């Protein structure tokens, strides 16, 4: 007997802060139960998103309160025209596929948006026959073409070309094999139990003119307007301008921290930029190029309340994309296990499992949430003295910023009232996932809500850097199937990876030798180590070399952070014209392939991630030599895979030539950190 889910269960409590806090989940649920808005964000917050640090200058609590009291009789229209349909609620419930969700949630969403006057994207997984009955849906053309036929293309209000998503820009969709049960396998035409992987790029879209070609092809074929969904990446302004020129009718921009059914943790934590950075720069660029009029901008990624949506519209969007909030309204407890198929709320669970979502209950919750958002928006607009949502679009002048620095404020086009730092840095304990050392692969997670140093405390400045992912202008490269070269040439040797292994254990040295990784530290096996004859310095220590190996080791103390020291040394050596004769290595408490990537882009040839190797060393010390060796091999392989994953996301196929010293591939969420490390702030 399958259990029918038609009530909420307790949300997960957690030690480390995330965007989807228990408090925020409860606020969404309250809206979903009462259809009454939850009003937040009227005072600036010291920590958190930029949105939380922005307030409407002239929004008086008394007029807001007054407006809320008679919200249904206010003469305010928050609707938008959506390609032949008039939406009452300016929300797009974004693109969760049949397969990622277990069927009933797909139906509940389509039903709720059609009833409440919002719209939903159905994702890439084919058209569920029950979903097809509802009018307010948008179908998707994605890189795997799962379930694609004419019938699908001709359903709904518009066609959405999915280029990327905020949780994993430059990485394709992924439905884990466990969730590929019979019905899903038939619809997607792949074997039961195999991972349904969508290629990272569309293999017919490697450039902006290729996108234009596909937009026109789909319009010719479907007779419908075509939207393009992209992740908010470092160079989102170029992407948006290109999309607008492609003759597409609009763009859906998905910010960092947005939800996902399955994404590598390292991509969630490091790729792309938050929506509050992306939206204003996109709006500014489109206006400057004369492309804003008649082009729909939909912005999403960690948006939950009516005030969030009002602010993102003021930043420059026409309407908002919400997906996680919709799942929270339908019972998500934020346990981050969507990829396992064991969703306790019967939303992302495996089809045919022990639980099933009650469609009526869930769709009613979502209708209430949508109505609550509509009411809240009406009250906010009224209090701002407006009668239509379109009056608010792009009104950055109505906002004032607190606790960010001037460079970020200027980039986002908002007035700075009181300065501060975006970066939220605190000593935090690092959780090392077992997949690294036990399985040799990058750990996978479900759901978003985590942007280090922003929604969640970060350990060090490095964490505030965002890695370039590419959308449309060039193709990302899939590292598991395609060629990404991470070999490094040092002093006549050729290493197969820049992940350098500390020689604390013979087993680690052997693993490094087996996989062609460099070794740091003398060892009893007599295997060559990179510090032989090298100069080892503390971060910030002065040095004058013209050739050889320089190792910056943060265990020696130093006056600046290791990341800053790497960037300075790289630039210094380049100025002196000797950079190509010196190898820069850095040793410090680094844990992931993203740390390796960022340090390389700042100028390091080799990276010694002492953090993870120390952890693994402690963890496996009781095992025999061969067993320990395998754990170290796994760790080297997993970090190298992560590095390749991140390189591939940006279309970078060569470590030694393309990545090392290429600061253009990084952006900083924080202005001070940007200056210290010699990179641009996000949005530039």
């Amino acid at each position, binding site marked *: 007997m399958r259990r029918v889910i038609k009530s909420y269960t307790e949300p997960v409590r957690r030690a480390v802060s995330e965007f989807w806090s228990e408090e925020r989940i409860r606020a969404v649920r309250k809206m979903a139960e009462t259809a009454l808005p939850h009003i937040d964000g009227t005072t600036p917050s010291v920590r958190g998103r930029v949105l939380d640090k922005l307030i409407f200058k002239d929004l008086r609590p008394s007029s807001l309160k007054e407006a809320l009291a008679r919200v249904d009789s206010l003469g305010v229209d928050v609707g938008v025209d959506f390609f032949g349909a008039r939406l009452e609620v300016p929300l797009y419930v974004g693109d969760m596929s049949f397969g990622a969700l277990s069927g009933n949630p797909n139906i509940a969403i389509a039903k709720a948006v059609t009833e409440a006057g919002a719209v939903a994207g159905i994702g890439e997984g084919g058209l569920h026959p029950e979903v097809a009955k509802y009018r307010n849906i948008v179908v998707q053309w994605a890189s795997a*073409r799962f379930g694609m*036929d*004419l019938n699908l293309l001709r359903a709904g209000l518009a066609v959405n070309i999915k280029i990327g998503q905020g949780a994993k820009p430059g990485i394709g969709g*992924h439905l884990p094999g466990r969730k590929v049960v019979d019905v899903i396998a038939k619809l997607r*035409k*792949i*074997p039961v139990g*195999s*991972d349904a*992987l969508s*290629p990272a790029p569309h*293999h*017919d879209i*490697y*450039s*902006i*003119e290729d996108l234009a*070609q*596909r937009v*026109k*092809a789909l319009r*010719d*074929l479907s007779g419908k307007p075509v939207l393009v969904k992209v992740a908010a990446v470092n*160079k989102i302004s170029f992407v948006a301008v*290109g999309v607008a020129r492609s003759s597409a009718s609009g763009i859906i921009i998905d910010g960092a921290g947005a939800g996902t059914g399955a994404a590598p943790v390292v991509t969630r934590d490091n790729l792309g930029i938050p929506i509050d950075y992306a939206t204003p720069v996109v709006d500014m660029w489109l206006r*400057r*190029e004369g492309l804003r009029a008649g082009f729909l901008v939909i912005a999403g990624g960690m948006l939950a309340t009516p005030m969030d949506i009002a602010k993102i519209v003021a930043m420059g969007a026409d309407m908002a994309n919400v997906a996680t909030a919709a799942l929270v309204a339908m019972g998500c407890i934020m346990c981050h296990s969507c990829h396992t198929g064991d969703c306790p709320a019967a939303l992302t669970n495996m089809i045919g499992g022990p639980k099933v979502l009650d469609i009526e209950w869930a769709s009613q919750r979502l209708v209430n949430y949508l109505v609550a958002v509509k009411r809240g928006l009406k009250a906010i607009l009224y209090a701002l003295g407006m009668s239509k949502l379109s009056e608010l679009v792009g009104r950055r002048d109505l906002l004032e910023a607190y606790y960010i620095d001037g460079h970020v404020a200027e980039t986002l086009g908002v007035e700075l009232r009181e300065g501060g730092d975006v970066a939220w840095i605190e000593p935090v304990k690092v959780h090392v996932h077992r997949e690294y050392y036990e399985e040799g*692969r990058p750990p996978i997670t479900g759901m978003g809500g985590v942007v280090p140093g922003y929604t969640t405390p970060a350990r060090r400045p490095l964490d505030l850097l965002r890695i370039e992912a*590419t959308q449309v*202008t*060039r193709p990302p490269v*899939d590292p*598991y*199937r395609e*060629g990404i070269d991470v070999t490094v040439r040092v002093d006549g040797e050729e290493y*197969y990876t820049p992940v350098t292994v500390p020689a604390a254990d013979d087993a680690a040295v*052997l*693993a490094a*030798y*087996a*996989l062609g990784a460099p070794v740091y530290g003398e060892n009893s*096996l007599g295997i060559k180590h990179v510090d032989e004859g090298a100069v080892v310095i503390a971060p910030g220590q002065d040095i004058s070399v013209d050739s050889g190996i320089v190792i910056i080791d943060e265990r020696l103390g130093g006056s600046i952070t290791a990341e800053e020291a790497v960037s300075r040394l790289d630039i210094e050596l380049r*100025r002196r*014209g000797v950079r*190509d004769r010196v190898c820069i290595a850095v040793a410090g408490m680094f844990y992931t392939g993203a740390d390796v990537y960022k340090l390389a882009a700042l100028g390091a040839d080799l990276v010694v991630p002492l953090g993870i190797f120390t952890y693994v060393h402690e963890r496996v010390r009781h095992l025999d*030599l*061969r067993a320990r060796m395998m754990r170290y*091999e*796994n760790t080297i392989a997993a970090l190298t895979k992560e590095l390749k994953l991140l390189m591939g996301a*940006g*279309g970078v*196929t*060569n470590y030694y*030539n*393309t990545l*090392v*010293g*290429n*600061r*253009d591939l990084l952006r900083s969420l924080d202005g001070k950190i940007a200056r210290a490390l010699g990179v641009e702030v996000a949005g530039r």
Partner: protein
Amino acid sequence: MCGIFGVFSLSGEYISGNIVLRALTVMRERGTMHGAGVALYSPSQHVRAKLFTYNSPRSAAEVRKLPGGIYDVTMYDSDETDDTRGAVHGIVYVRSKWLDIYKVIGWPKDLDRVYGVSEMRSVAWLGHTRYPTNSPGGLPYYSHPFSAGDVAIVHNGDLSSYGANLNLLRYKFRYYNFTGNDSEVIAYLLWELYKRYGVEKAVEELMHGREIRWARLDGPYAVLFIIGGPKPIFGAFVDTQHFRPLYVGVSREFVYAASEAAAIKAVGGGGVEIWALRGGEYIIAAGGEVWGHYKKRDALYHDLPPQPPNAIDASLYGATELAPAIRQLLSEMGHVSVINVMGHRYLGNGMESGILKIWGIVGNASGNVMSGGEIHIYGDAQDDLGDAMNGGLVAVYGNVGDTVAQAKRGGEIYIYGSAGNRAGIQHRGGVLVIGGSAGDYLGEYMGGGTILVLRHTSDEEVGRKIGAGMVGGTIYIRGEVDREKIGSAGASKAITERYLRALRLAGINADPGSLQDNLRRLFSLYHEVEVRELTEEEVATLTPYVRKFNTLFNEDASIEREVFTIIRAGALPRE
């Protein structure tokens, strides 16, 4: 981004600028009104410098006022100081004794309106129509071609190596003025490398970065160049992954290169052999010679049926206007013939029944989301043919470009000649029969159905990374395929040997099975590969398709008593 075209005269006969403008117009869909340009070989007695400035200089050979308060200024070293940059404040876009460049904000035809390009004549030309990517489309100096020293280039692509290349130019070669357009670094690098190494090695260095660190280009690029000198050099090269299309054409008199085969066909006429360069290939021409690293792959079927007199003349339709007209006629008549097709796109998309016969070169993204009927293409087809096909039949009496039969769920595609990269990527049902050979990534992510590569009309080996990421279906390739070419092959022979040495060093005796498992885990290897003759059952299954191939193309391909490499997905990948 964009459409690029180049032509070089082997005989020394002059080529009219009109040819270049016509070829660019065929590729109109690749461009926008945001930029166009040409470069030509045009020797001058003195070094000629051309600049865009915001102020009209007092002394200059020629000054032309452009919209937006910009001046196009020409100066000669004879009547100026050595440093034109010092004398006039502006952006120098060419400074060479041998080359001349014209660029505009606009369409290719605006080059003629402003500068009269159609009247010019030269032995070597480059042309460009622009779809801006990484810089605004508002100022003419962002338009291509870009030039450095005696080099001019046009580029289609977007470099991920831009920041790294810029470091090299800034710190090693001491260049300081950049417009911010990624493409210009190619001109600077090619010029510096050419001076050091000569043309061939310079091109190799740009593609592979063997000697000079940070000179390697990364990301998509198709590049055409001219290098000035008493004897001009013309060349074309494309990135190692073949992320951008680049076709070349060679006749007795001329060498052509373009983003689309149709552009060459339109201006070259009959005697030109046209084929696509593969990833990492290049072609160079100077004097009467043509050489490089490439293989000629033209494979036009020689006994094409005559063009019917009542056929539709595609030359009367724009690149995207023909498709809806054909759809309409198919629904009315069920049988449509079209001639003079020259890169027209989307032909037969969404086709459910009927017969469509096409003479010419079929443009990108045709035969997509087809569920029934037949398309016969008497000529080559460009990229993305048969995407998301659910049923029906497509026969190509020539070669196809990249990504044929992507995510095909059913139906049959027969190709007389060879396919480019990623043939049958995500193939999930039905059959894809290739009479010749195929490029890299054949059957990537394949989920089902059958791919049969006969190597009958061309016995070239299939490219690298066959079946990378496949989870289902079967690939049959005639002949023995090197195991290292199958899958992503993370664990090369070298690493296996290293691994064994490490184990010996540790005094560990690993049995070969567990070693193999370990390497599979670390490098995600998962293919089942057999090299043998086909079983009776396999022959029975495949024979109807081979028979169909032979009937369509009047060939005699046979699969019995032939050794095949048979590739299937092994243990399921876990990522």
